[in-house]
């Protein structure tokens, strides 16, 4: 993702994040009042609906632009539904539905949840772990109808939403749909299904995770250079250096695999075997990197790193929370393993070497 335009959109996003969503500043605040001006600035810049074409109410940016923005959002541990609104817009756009303004989220956001589109054109079912549902105005969702898959837009005020939160304290709600009448709906294009939505969500989370890891690495290396123990900065100790090198390795792996998956999706029309390998691998490996990376960073920081006062948790807890969204690494590993097993040994290397 090195195109010129990626930089422009991502740099614009970075400026807004730094001005109005700086993690250290936010960490000192007691309430969520910062979210309103922050969201307004993001909306004014066209970022939440970046993936929606202009004729459907969006900014018409490329997929690469959007993923680059999500990488920067990860670096700032952005705690508003930017990724969710982007994906929701993308989902609506695929069926030609117009996207509303305001924060959105997507359902289902777990592989095992299903929503039913009834004969009476209403939606029923339950989705758990829906990110930011309690802060969103609308939900873009994918439902099973008798005649196939339907994409629909519903107002959150028509749904029953609980108060659950994820590890980082961000909303991650159970949402019940009881014969909810959608604001609008359309038939999904052929080949687009539940798995495709989960893969798109997984790649978005992977890109965010890689961004968060970049910040964790930078924070941790700075701290190791500053903090003195036994008359030396702790970063001068080989044991600490080895750990930081491992953290750099995990960060590198997350960056490379999420970047590769985002690039694959940005350059392909549909969801084929290559997209599946890329996206599932990105989620699996980024979750492994998040788990390993968070643990190394906290070890280097010692006690100060797990205080509420310190900013580290804004990154570590968020990337640990993201592990569960759109399919955990265990889920995707089992899916990927089954796929590879079914294809057999002879087809394995050609699949890996496809691009």
């Amino acid at each position, binding site marked *: *993702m*090195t195109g010129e335009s990626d930089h422009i959109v991502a740099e614009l996003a970075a400026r807004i994040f730094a001005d109005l969503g700086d993690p250290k500043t936010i960490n000192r605040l007691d309430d969520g009042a910062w979210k309103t001006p922050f969201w307004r600035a993001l909306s004014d810049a066209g970022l939440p609906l970046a993936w929606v074409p202009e004729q459907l109410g969006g900014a018409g940016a490329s997929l690469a632009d959007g993923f680059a923005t999500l990488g920067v959002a990860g670096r700032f541990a952005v705690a508003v539904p930017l990724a969710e609104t982007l994906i929701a817009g993308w989902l609506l756009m695929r069926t030609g539905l117009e996207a509303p303004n305001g924060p959105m989220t997507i359902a289902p956001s777990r592989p095992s949840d299903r929503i039913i589109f009834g004969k009476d054109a209403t939606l029923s079912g339950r989705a758990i772990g829906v990110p930011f549902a309690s802060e969103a105005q609308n939900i873009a969702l994918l439902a099973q109808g008798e005649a196939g898959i339907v994409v629909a837009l519903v107002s959150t005020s028509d749904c029953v939403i609980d108060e659950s939160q994820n590890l980082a304290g961000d909303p991650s709600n159970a949402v019940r749909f009881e014969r909810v009448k959608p604001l609008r709906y359309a038939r999904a294009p052929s080949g687009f299904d539940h798995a495709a939505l989960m893969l798109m969500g997984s790649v978005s989370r992977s890109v965010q995770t890689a961004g968060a890891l*970049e910040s964790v*690495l*930078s924070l941790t*290396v*700075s701290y*190791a*250079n500053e903090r003195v123990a036994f008359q030396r900065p702790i*970063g*001068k100790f*080989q044991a600490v*250096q*080895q750990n*930081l*090198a*491992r953290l*750099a*390795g995990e*960060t*590198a*792996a997350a*960056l*490379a*695999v999420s*970047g*590769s998956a*985002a*690039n694959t999706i940005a*350059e392909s029309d549909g969801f084929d075997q290559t997209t599946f*390998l*890329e996206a*599932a*691998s*990105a989620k*699996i*490996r980024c979750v*492994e990197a998040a788990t390993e990376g968070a643990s190394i960073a906290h070890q280097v920081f010692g006690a100060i790193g797990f205080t509420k006062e310190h900013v580290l948790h804004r990154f570590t807890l968020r990337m640990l929370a993201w592990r569960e969204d759109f399919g955990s*690494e*265990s889920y*995707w*590993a*089992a*899916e*990927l*393993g*089954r796929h*590879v*097993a*079914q294809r*057999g*040994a002879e087809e*394995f*290397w050609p699949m*890996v*070497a496809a*691009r």
Partner: protein
Amino acid sequence: MNTNLQFDQIRLPPECDTLRQEARAFLAEEIAKGTFDPHRPGHGDAHDRAFSKRIGAKGWIGMTWPKKYGGHERSFLERYVVTEEFRVANAPVRSHFVADRQSGPILLKYAPEHIKANILPRICRGELCFVIGMSEPGSGSDLFAAKTKATKVDKGWLINGSKIWTSNADVADYMIALFRTSPPTNENRRHGLTQFLVDMKARGIKVNPIYQMSGEHDFNEVVFEDVFVPDDHVLGEIDGAWKQATSELAYERSGPERFLETFYLMLELIRSVGSEPDIRCAEGLGRLVAQLHTLRRMSVAVAGMLQSGKEPVVEAAIVKDLGTIWEQRLPNRVRELTAFLAPEIANRVTLEEQLAFATTIAPKLTIQGGTTEILRGIIARGLGLR
């Protein structure tokens, strides 16, 4: 401090696809002919020079070098594709691989014209085997502790001392070695080493085999007794070899050979678990696939960056750190994942044979070409911690 890591996303260009198909067809033909058995690593002749010559004839050695030295002026990405296809097939490339990967590029950069014109075309034809003379009985990871001495004499140098853990020295034609030409200085302990090209047929060289715990013979001790090396075999600056080492290492560290060494076990694992694996095997396999895919995308990204003239030194060290640990752990992961499979699965014998072989060679993977600890030191330096 610099914690910015970069992996440019590249898609292998179309010419790579054609080349990949050619490489696969060539390998399939060689397997059919019985040149090697892809399922039996460690069997057969790892040093098949006739095979290397056939590879040379295809134009797959020295691929990126100038045509006037027998090279083919192809891209690093094309070389990448050929390298990975040969690794995955378990093809015996030991005879030419070191020359292709690192000795040739060093000669291109530092050798005088007449030596380049003489040697490089022969490397490209698969006729020459090169070895690396770095480690000594008293110096391994600490390269700059090397003591083997080169003493100035009329028209050249006399070498005395020994190198150790030198793979392939028993069959090699040339060694590129570091010898001490001056003592280190107080200000710079890296000062005083010079890089030389040594003809392995020179008088005074003795090669003693060292057997590995796997039973294989790969390592050797190379003893030098008053070995004469002519002046024009000095490669680069006298006493200044330390300045020359770093940039080449990115090529050496990040290639597909840094994570595909035990790849055959992935294929055998897939055969073992069958088309409908239980959840434990499926999940375990899936994780390994994701990890392998990640390593490959990292390695391809580094190759692309090298091709475009960048020097991703830290990224390359990371590829080798993660890659060698992965390929080293793979045998035990496969062992665990196949633990509950029926004893009578069709490929049980092959699997166990491969596991036994991989387990006994695994320890070397994180030692050769820079240990994990040294690599992490390089990464730490790149992060600004040293």
